[in-house]
Each structure stands twice: as C-alpha cells, then as structure tokens.
C-alpha cells in the first residue's frame, strides 16, 4: 500500500472547535489514480493536506509507503515534501516574481542541485507540458491552463511517489480542464505515480479509476471506475 489511513481524526481549534475528520479509514495502492469527492466543507482539503504532510492530524495513524507519519520534525517533513510528494493547487501557487522555468526549478534548488542541471531538467519538463516557449514568462503573463501546467511540471520534477491535486481544474474552463486531466492521466500511466485528485466535478472524477466519497468527515462510498462511465455526461467531457 502506498497510503494507509487508520481512524484519522482532525479537529480545528478555532473560536469553536470543529471536528472535521471523524475517523478516516482509507487505503490507496501504488500507482492508483483516485479522486476524492464531497460537498463543500466536508473535509477534502483537510484530508489532502494531511496526506501531503502540510498539516498534522490529532489521532489515528497515517502510513506513507510503509512508514508511519507522525510527529515528524520540520526537517523530515520538508524532506518528504521535497522527495516523495508533489502538490498541485487550485490556485496554482506559483511564485509570481519568478519565471515559469524558475518556478519549476525551485524544488531542485531546495535539494541543492546545481543551477545548470536544474535549468536543464526544468526545461525538459516544461517541454513535456508543451511550454518551451513560455519558459521565460512570468505567471501573470500566462493563462490559467498554462499556469497549471507549469505547476504540474514543478510537481513532477522531483519524481515524487504521489501527486496530490486539490481541485486542479477548479479555476479552468471545461476544455482546459480536460486537457489537464489528460495530462495527469498520462503522468500516472507513464511515470507510475500515485495520483489523488480532490474535486467536486463529477466529470473530473470520472477521469480517475476510483472515486472516494467523503461526507461529514467520514469516508462514504468507494466506487471503482475503470470503465469511466460514472459521469452522467459520458466519457471525456467535463460539465462546468
């Protein structure tokens, strides 16, 4: 198993304590391509952040690739984020005073890889995303789809074991959404990366092989979707 969650609980202690994850049990195998669906506020992002070690959980166990993720030091956490996990965000989260290629290079910078090597690899990944001509452009000179592809290149450049995408198509139109999903599918197949996509668009979920429903902080139905016919609008279409 790539990911194993056992009775994971998470409470936000704000003005009023909010019990968001109420005992999550979940297994995701190596190389799987799954989506997590659920209503707004059901705790999808919270779950994904815990999976990505961007946030910690209160009780339970989280096993990542056979290792228990609990009480990590900041250094260890940073190492996991840099080596094992790739993140893709709804709002792209590119650094806007860096060019596309500089953004893609950044994870390698924190790995201590030399400038030339970094640049070389970043250009390679931008090329895969069809963005060679946009390498020297700044994020605010690019369309949403282009920005998300830069972000995907940034997530891929470290050869992560899992990629976590929090509504990667949320800010894109349906045609671009489809393109991005095709890309993720290809990456999942070609690079054998475990891919977890949070979405509330059924068309997006339909592109994945397994759909996990989350409701009120617990896992509901888990649908197998190898046939990609879960969408009421048919295969290869995303209704916005």
């Amino acid at each position, binding site marked *: 198993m790539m990911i194993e969650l056992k009775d994971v609980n998470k409470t936000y202690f704000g003005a009023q304590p909010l019990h968001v994850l109420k005992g999550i049990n979940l297994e995701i195998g190596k190389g799987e391509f799954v989506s997590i669906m659920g209503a707004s506020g059901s705790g999808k992002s919270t779950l994904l952040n815990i999976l990505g070690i961007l946030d910690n959980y209160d009780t339970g166990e989280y096993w990542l690739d056979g290792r228990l993720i609990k009480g990590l030091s*900041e250094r260890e956490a940073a190492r996991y984020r840099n080596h094992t996990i790739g993140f893709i*965000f709804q709002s792209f989260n590119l650094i806007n005073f860096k060019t596309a290629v500089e953004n893609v290079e950044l994870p390698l910078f*924190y790995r201590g890889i030399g400038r030339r090597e970094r640049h070389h690899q970043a250009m390679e990944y931008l090329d895969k995303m069809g963005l060679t001509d946009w390498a020297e452009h700044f994020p605010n000179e690019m369309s949403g789809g282009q920005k998300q592809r830069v972000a995907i290149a940034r997530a891929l450049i470290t050869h992560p074991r899992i990629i976590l995408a929090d509504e990667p198509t949320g800010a894109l139109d349906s045609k671009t959404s489809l393109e991005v999903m095709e890309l993720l599918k290809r990456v999942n197949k070609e690079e054998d990366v475990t891919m977890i996509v949070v979405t509330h668009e059924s068309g997006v979920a339909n592109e994945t092989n397994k759909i996990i429903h989350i409701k009120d902080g617990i896992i509901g139905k888990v649908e197998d979707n190898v046939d990609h016919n879960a969408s009421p609008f048919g295969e290869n279409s995303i209704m916005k």
Partner: protein
Amino acid sequence: MKFDIDAFREISQTLRRNKSRTFLTGFGVFWGMFMLLVLLGGSKAVKSMVSKDMGNFATNCVIVMNGITTKPYGGFKSGRQIMFRTADMDELRKIQGVELATTSMSQWGVQAVYGTNKYNGVNFQGVTSDYSRIQFQHMKYGRFINDMDNAEGRKVATIGWRVYETLFPGGGDPCGKFISINGIYYEIIGVVAQTSSNFNINGGSDRGVFCPMSVMARLYNRGDRIWGLMVLVKPEYRSSEVMNQCVNMMKQKYLVAPNDKRAIVGLNIESMFTFVRNLFKGLDLLFLLVGIGTLLAGAIGVSNIMMVTVKERTTEIGIRRAIGATPKTIISQVIAESITLTMVSGMFGIIFSVMILGMVELGFTKDGVMTAQFQVTFWQALLALLGLITLGVLAGLAPASRAMQIKPVDAMREE
C-alpha cells in the same frame, strides 16, 4: 548557511521586488552609519585639536606660587610679599612624594642677534636640567641645558624653533655658533623642535632661549629670588596630597598663617588634565550614543520592514515550504536578506562618511600641515562593518522566526 550564487540571486530577486521600500529601509541604515562615523571623526578632531595644546606638559605636576600675605602671623603684619628662593628646590625634595622641584627665571621681550639677523620678543629663561622633565623639550639639534652648565656657569643657550628659523634662515645645525642677547654672547648648544603645545608655564619654547639659571642669576643680579616652584610628583603618590604638603612646608618656612589662602598658592595640574580628559570621555560617550542610536533606529527599521515583508510573503513562504524548503533555509534566507540590506547600505554610509571627513580634513589643512585629524581609522570602519553584520542578523531574527511560524497550509488558504 549556504551562501553561493544561487542564494545571492534569490536574495537580490526578493529585494529588488520592492525597490522603493528596499531603498527607504536601506537609507535608514546608511544614515545611521554615516552619522556614527562622522560623529566619531568629529570628536576625534576636537580631541586632536585640544590635546595638541597640552601635549608636552607633564601631567603629574603641581605648581606652588608665592604671593602677598593677607593675615598677620608670626609677628609680621599682613600685606608682606613672599618670595621663594632657589634653595627651596632642594627643600621640597625632602617631601617623600616629590620626585623633583625646579623653577625658571625669565626675562621677557629681549632681542637675540646673530650676525645681521635679529629676533625681537625672545622669552629668555634661566633653567636647570630638571625643567625639561616637566616641560618636555624635543631636541632638533644638540641638547638641552644640563647640570654641568649650571654648576660651571657656562654661557651656553638652547634656542627655540622660531628663534632658530629667524636667526638661521639657511637652516643647518647652529651648535657652536654664538648669539648675543643684551650684548652678552652665548654659545648655542641645542635647538628645540617646533611644538604645537599651547599649554606651558612662563611662555612656550618656540620663542624661548634657555640658559643655565646660575648664569642668569649672576649676569642679571637676580640673586636667588624666584616666582614659584614646579614640582614633579612621584607616580605612586597623589598629587593633591603632595601639593598640600609642599604648600604647608613653604608656609612654615616663610611664617605664613596656615589659613592664609593668598600668600602661597598650589596649583594641581593633574586635576586640570583629568577634567579635560573626563570631558573628552563624556563627549566620546555622547557621540557614540547618538551614533549608535541612529544606527540602531536604522536597524530596527530594517527589522520592521522585513517583518512586513515576511507577512506579505506568507503565501510565497508557504509555497516554498510545500515544495520542500526547510525552516532553516527560510530563516537563513530572511536573515541573509537582512544582512545584505544592512551591509550594502551601511557600506555606502562608510564610504560616504569617509569621503566627507576627508574633504573636511582637507579644509582644515593649512600649508600642507593637517591641523586636525578627522578621518576614522581602518579599524573603526572594520568594527563598524562587523557591527553592521551583527545588526543585520539581529534585525533579521524576529522576522525570520515569524517566517518559520508560517505553516505550509497557509499557502493554500489565501484565496
């Protein structure tokens, strides 16, 4: 901390992002550095000007002067003129704390003649060799009056710089030549180097001609009457105590009332020097405080701005954390930014102040001779630089710890 071209690019990129803010912040540090060094230079200049005035005079020295009695005592009425005698020099030496006691006899405004050259306004003094131990005499040529000259009553003279320059415009060693004063010929045995000291007793040596005291006493019928005594105090004794002992001894000897404050007066040179020295110390401290205060204000400005910057960059820092930046790299980046900002602007401050001080110094230079030293030393500048780096680190500390508290989840919660 790793510091290579990459780290530097990161820093300059983030600093350049907000040019005007970076500039304004840097200006605070620049100004602080500038003020600090200019103030240091200024206080140094004042000191060098004043200490020149005191340069050649022994500090552990007291002077005992005679005057007119104001109280009847020992059968005498008041209003009696007290005059010391040369024998009192040996008398005072009996006091334990006295290293030596000496005096001088002088004639003002006499004329010295060599060949056709004349110098009017010579301060002609009869001295013993001890005189040069209280009023140091740096010799340009030859030597000062010594004990043999006095004992044998030789008609020899050591002349001051101005007198030498006027009588011997051609320069060269004048020893062995004869000058005439009041028609009496003296063999020159030495020339005192030019002094810049304005603090002296019985006139400066530049306009002086010194002869043995025994010669002056004999040739001008001065007898053994003198105006007062200069006493050098042994290093391990307090000059105020020794001064009181000397005054009391003379009061006893000349039958002066113990409480008569006018007849015999002591003057403690050391306390005068101490006063001036303390004044300098205070001045130094004041300048240092003002300068450091200004610099500190600049550094606090840097810290403040970095704080705002870090706050503004919450998202960016969150993103960096999410893709694998360790807290250490974030901290060192913030601190490196702070150091770079303080260093670069501080360096400009150093360069600018050195330039200004150099220009002022040039203004104070007369005929190629510097009259006051303004320039800060290399070590002062180096110290300032080290201080700047420390300040940079300190200024970066608070914002850095704030940056560390930013959780990667915050990157996503901006919307």
